């Protein structure tokens, strides 16, 4: 079981990083969007490895089903006349900042010991997640409601913005 997880982790990680780079590197936006979908899929795969199956399904449903579609819609609606997505003036500085950020974070990660518990949590997460979300006192009911209101506001905002007068 261990080696299985390790192998699949490395594969998924490789795919994810490769697709992320593709999204950033490619000139043709539509292909970039497709690679983004691939990246979302590999993230869902990682969630499965981490035992968060409900989250994996939710990830596929929300990101691939909704957000990727939305992005593709946006690409279609704002059909770019000049080709694809050239990189702007801050290429080098941004690359530098990204690299620096990566180095610092890895340093931090490596240096602190996380005293992580390694054995695999067995039971499926759906019911326990629901418990966490909705149970009375310790639950996250209020944030849940606020998230709902946030979504409502976002939707109405978007409609008003995009509605043709």
């Amino acid at each position, binding site marked *: 079981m261990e080696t299985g997880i390790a192998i699949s982790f490395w594969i998924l990680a490789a795919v994810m*990083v490769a697709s992320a780079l593709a999204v950033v590197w490619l000139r043709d936006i539509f292909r*970039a969007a497709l690679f983004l979908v691939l*990246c979302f899929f590999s993230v869902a795969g*990682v969630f499965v490895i981490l035992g968060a199956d409900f989250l994996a399904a939710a990830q596929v449903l929300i990101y691939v089903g909704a957000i990727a579609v939305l992005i593709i819609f946006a690409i279609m609606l704002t059909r770019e006349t000049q080709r694809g*997505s050239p990189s702007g003036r801050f*290429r080098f500085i*941004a690359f530098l900042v990204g690299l620096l950020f990566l180095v610092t974070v890895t340093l931090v990660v490596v240096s602190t010991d996380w005293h*992580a518990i390694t054995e695999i949590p067995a039971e499926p997460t759906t019911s326990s997640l629901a418990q*966490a979300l909705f149970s009375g006192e310790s639950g996250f009911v209020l944030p849940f409601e606020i998230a709902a209101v946030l979504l409502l506001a976002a939707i109405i905002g*978007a409609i008003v913005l995009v509605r043709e007068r």
Partner: protein
Amino acid sequence: MAVGLEHFLILSAVLFSIGLYGALAKRNAVVILMCIEIMLNAVNIAMVAFSRYGHLLTGQVFAIFIMVVAAAEVVVGLALVIAIYRSRETVDVERIDLMKW
């Protein structure tokens, strides 16, 4: 060798920095939004990794809320991009710079 918490954190860091580079370097607004999505996903991975290696479900709950916020953010972001495209016929971020002195 076995896959520890560090692996996931480093993976999410790599992903985050790629997204960061994209968001800061790219000129097309839609690609910027895509890169922001990648950054949010990176954070999600880290959250779920913490919940798995810390045996505490709050990580996943946070991941869900991050997803909600990400969705809302994309919706409004894209609405803005389309509205800008309609009025100024461009999504090149460098040419959308009216908010200056």
